[in-house]
C-alpha cells in the first residue's frame, strides 16, 4: 500500500467514528453560519436567511459527496485525490446551490431572482472558494492526525524493539557454565556417592540449584538479594567441597538488605571470577568475602578475594564484560563496576547500583 492509500484509509477510518463526524459536523455548521453572516454583509443580496440556507446546503452537499467519493474510489495518489475532490466541489457547488434554491422556494417560499447582478455566478465562485478552503483545512487536520498516529505507532514499535533487544541481551549475557567446573563437580558427586553419600547428596542439590538459575532461559529481571546470595552459596559450597581447605568464604549482608530487590546474575559472575582466576590457581587458596551496604541511595556490593590478583587478567574476561554490559542495560550510567587491587592481595570487585531503580 502506498502512503496516500494509507492516508485515504486513515481519513475514512477517521470519519467512520461518529464522534469525529459529529465534531466536524458542528465545526462545518458553525463555520457555515459564520460565513452566512459575513456574506449577508458583503453580497448584494442583504438577506441572512437566504445566505444561511444556501451556504449550509453547499457545505452539507460537498461534505457528503467528498465522503461518498472517497469511500467509493479510494484514490491511490494525491493527483487522483485532488481530481476527485475538484469534481466533487464543482458538482457539489451546483447540486448544493440547486438544492438550496429548491429548499428556499419549496419550504420557505422565497423566490430569489438569480439573474440580477449575476448573483448565480458569484454564488458559484464563492461556493468553490469556501469549499476548497474547508476541504484543505480538513485534510490538513486529518493528515496531521495521521502523521501523529504514525509517529506514535513508530514509537511504540521502536520501544517494543528496544525492549526486545534489551531482554535478548540480558538473556545472552547470562553467565555461561564452565564445562570444567561442571565435570569436576560431577566427578566429585560420583565419588562421594560411595564414600560420603550425604555429602554427595547435598553437593548434587547445590549443583541443581546452581544449574536451575544458570540454565534458565527466562531469567526474571529482578529478584531479591537473598535469592542471588543463595545461588552464590550453592556455588561456593560446591567449590568448598572441591577445594576443601583452600577455600573459605564469608557473606556479610545486613538483615535489612536481604529482601532488597536485585537483578539476578550480576554478582554470581564476580564470585565465579574470584574463584576461577583468583583462588583456584593459587596453591594456598584463600578467602572470599561478600559484603553489601547501603550508602545514601546506592547499593554497594563488594566481592573481595585474597587470590592471585591481576596477574591472571591478560585474557579477555567474558564474565566481567557481561556484568558490565548488563549493568549498563539495566541502569545506564548509574550502574557501576569497579575492579580494584585488594590489600594485601587479590581483587576487589565493587558493584554500585542506584537504590531507587533497583
Amino acid at each position, binding site marked *: 500500500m502506498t502512503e496516500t492509500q494509507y492516508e485515504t484509509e486513515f481519513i475514512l477510518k477517521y470519519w467512520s467514528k461518529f464522534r469525529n463526524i459529529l465534531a466536524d459536523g458542528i465545526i462545518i455548521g458553525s463555520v457555515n453560519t459564520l460565513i452566512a453572516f459575513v456574506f449577508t454583509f458583503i453580497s448584494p443580496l442583504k438577506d441572512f436567511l437566504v445566505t444561511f440556507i444556501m451556504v449550509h446546503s453547499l457545505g452539507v452537499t460537498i461534505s457528503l459527496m467528498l465522503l461518498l467519493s472517497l469511500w467509493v474510489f479510494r484514490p491511490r495518489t494525491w493527483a487522483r485525490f485532488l481530481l476527485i475532490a475538484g469534481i466533487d466541489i464543482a458538482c457539489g457547488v451546483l447540486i448544493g446551490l440547486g438544492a438550496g434554491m429548491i429548499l428556499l422556494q419549496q419550504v420557505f417560499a422565497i423566490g430569489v431572482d438569480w439573474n440580477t447582478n449575476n448573483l448565480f455566478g458569484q454564488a458559484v465562485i464563492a461556493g468553490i472558494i469556501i469549499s476548497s478552503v474547508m476541504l484543505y483545512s480538513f485534510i490538513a487536520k486529518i493528515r496531521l492526525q495521521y502523521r501523529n498516529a504514525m509517529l506514535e505507532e513508530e514509537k511504540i514499535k521502536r520501544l517494543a524493539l528496544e525492549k526486545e533487544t534489551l531482554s535478548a541481551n540480558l538473556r545472552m549475557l547470562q553467565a555461561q557454565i564452565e564445562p*570444567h567446573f561442571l*565435570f569436576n563437580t560431577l566427578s566429585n558427586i560420583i565419588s562421594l556417592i560411595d564414600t560420603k553419600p550425604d555429602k554427595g547428596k547435598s553437593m548434587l542439590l547445590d549443583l541443581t540449584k546452581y544449574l536451575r538459575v544458570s540454565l534458565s532461559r527466562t531469567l526474571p529481571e529482578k529478584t531479591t538479594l537473598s535469592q542471588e546470595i543463595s545461588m552464590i552459596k550453592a556455588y561456593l559450597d560446591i567449590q568448598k567441597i572441591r577445594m576443601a581447605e*583452600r577455600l573459605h568464604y564469608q557473606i556479610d549482608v545486613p538483615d535489612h538488605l536481604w529482601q532488597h530487590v536485585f537483578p539476578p546474575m550480576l554478582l554470581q559472575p564476580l564470585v565465579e571470577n574470584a574463584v576461577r582466576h583468583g583462588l583456584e590457581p593459587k596453591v594456598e587458596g584463600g578467602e572470599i568475602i561478600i559484603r553489601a551496604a547501603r550508602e545514601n541511595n546506592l547499593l554497594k556490593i563488594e566481592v573481595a578475594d585474597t587470590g592471585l590478583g591481576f596477574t591472571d587478567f591478560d585474557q579477555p574476561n567474558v564474565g566481567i564484560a557481561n556484568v*558490565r554490559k548488563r549493568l549498563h542495560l539495566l541502569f545506564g550510567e548509574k550502574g557501576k563496576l569497579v575492579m580494584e587491587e585488594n590489600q594485601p592481595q587479590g581483587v576487589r570487585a565493587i558493584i554500585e547500583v542506584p537504590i531507587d531503580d533497583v
Partner: protein
Amino acid sequence: MTYKAIIADDEKELRTYLKKMLAEVWPQLKICGEAANGKEAVKMVDDFVPHIAFLDIRMPGLSGLDVAKKIAGACRIVFVTAFDQYAVEAFEREAVDYLVKPVTKERLQQTINRLKKQLQASAEPPRELADVITQILAGFQKNRRTDDYLQWIKTQHRNTFRLISVEEVDYFQARDKYTLVMTSDGEALIKKSIKELTRELDPQKFWQIHRGTVVQVSRIEHVGRSLTGRGILKLKNRSDTLTVSRQYMHLFKQM
C-alpha cells in the same frame, strides 16, 4: 614386578576416587603418593621414582602439562582432565594416554591394559614425550591467546590500583609521555605513551584520529566537519568533542 604410581589432583575427593578405581582395576599397582598440586607432583616423582604418574591438567601452581614437561622421561604419564578440548585433541593425535573425568571403569581398564603392555615391552619410559608436551603447551598458549590485544588497563586510584577494561574507555588522550584514559566515570593517567598504546590496542576497535588521540569506535555518535575540513567527533554520552586531523579523515569516508 610391582609397579608404583602417583596421583596428582588438587581435589582430594577425586584423588580418592581414582585410587579406589585403580585398586579395582589393577590391584597390584601401588599408589606411593598423592599430590595436591603441580610442585608436589614433581617432588614425588623425584622422591619415589614411580613408573606411572596420573596428572590432572588443571592444578594450581604448575599445571599437569608443566609437570609432564619436567618429569618426561622419568616415568609414564596419564593425563586426567575434566574438560580441555584442545588438550584432548592433542592427546588423541599424539597417542598420549589420558582419562576424562568422571573416570569410568571401562575407560580406565583400557588405559591400564595399554600401560601394562607398554611397561612389559620396555621398562624405560619414552623420551620423546617431552617434545610432544612442549608442542601441546605451545599450542595451548596459542590457543588461549587468540585475542592478544590489551584487555585491561591498570591505573592508580588514590592508594589502590584499579583495573579498567578497555571496553569502558571512551578515548585516550596524550599528555606528554603519559596518557589520559577517559571513561564515563572520569579520567585516569597512565604511564604509557599513546604510541605504545596504539600498538597494543585492537585496531578494529580503537582508531587513532589525531596525533594525540585514540578513540573507541563504538563510542562515536556522529562525525561532523569543520570549516577547515577537519572532522569533529561527537561521542555518545559525552559533551566534549574530538578533532580528527585531516591525515585521519579517510577513516570516516564511508560513514
